[in-house]
């Protein structure tokens, strides 16, 4: 179990290195998909199954699909992958940097910290994170209303940014 979670954490770092070394956006989106998938695995192994499901649905299924469609705006005839010279330099530097930081900061395995939530609690139908999110609808209702207004505001922000013909917030469009 420890080894599985360690593999997922290493895959998270590798995925983010794949994004940060800035290849063509197709490959960076692939790296983000892998990183989000293993991030969901890390959350599941700590017992947060609902938060992992939310991450998969909203982040991968919503936001990254939109980014994948926007990658059509960044189309190149010869996209740079991670094997090309300039990108490979960044990949090597980032891996060496992470290795150095790991040498300084990582002390040990700390298996005692990898506990599943609600391990020693009473038996219940609901996991901890689900009932916590349900709190957002009861006591945290004000934050929910604010969040909904912010989302509506963002809709109008996007409308004004892309209105075009010098009538929106960017005169050049």
């Amino acid at each position, binding site marked *: 179990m420890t080894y599985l979670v360690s593999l997922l954490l290493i895959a998270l770092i590798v995925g983010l290195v794949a*994004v940060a070394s800035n290849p063509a956006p197709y490959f960076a989106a692939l790296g983000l998909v892998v990183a989000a998938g293993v991030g969901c695995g890390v959350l599941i192994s700590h017992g947060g199954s609902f*938060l992992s499901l939310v991450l998969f649905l909203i982040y991968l299924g919503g936001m990254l699909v939109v980014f994948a469609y926007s990658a059509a705006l*960044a189309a190149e005839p010869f996209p740079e992958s991670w094997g090309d010279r300039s990108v490979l330099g960044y990949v090597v530097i980032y891996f060496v940097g992470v290795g150095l930081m790991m040498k300084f900061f990582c002390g040990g395995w700390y298996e005692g910290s990898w506990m599943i939530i609600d391990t020693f609690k009473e038996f219940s139908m609901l996991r901890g994170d689900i009932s916590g999110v349900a709190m957002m609808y009861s006591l945290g209702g004000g934050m929910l209303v604010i969040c909904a207004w912010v989302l509506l505001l963002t809709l109008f922000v996007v409308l004004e940014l892309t209105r075009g013909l010098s009538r929106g917030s960017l005169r050049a469009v």
Partner: protein
Amino acid sequence: MTPVHFSFCSAFILGLMGLTFHRTHLLSALLCLEGMMLSLFIALALWTLQFEMTGFSAAPMLLLAFSACEASAGLALLVATARTHGTDRLQNLNLLQC
């Protein structure tokens, strides 16, 4: 530092460095920003789970909602850039260059 703590901290720093040293495309900078948001979501969710503060599980959900707003604003700017300059390459954003 526990391995989990180290991994999402280094994921955030990697995304930040990818955003700082972006090279050609504006979209790859936005994707690095999304990577930072992913590491922040994982961090807040693990904070909730490891400290068993179940009432805090609303925080990663709200973070995800606000990061969706930010991603859509970034993509609107990308679309505006592609409309004026024809591409999102950063070397084309040189109107102010003498």
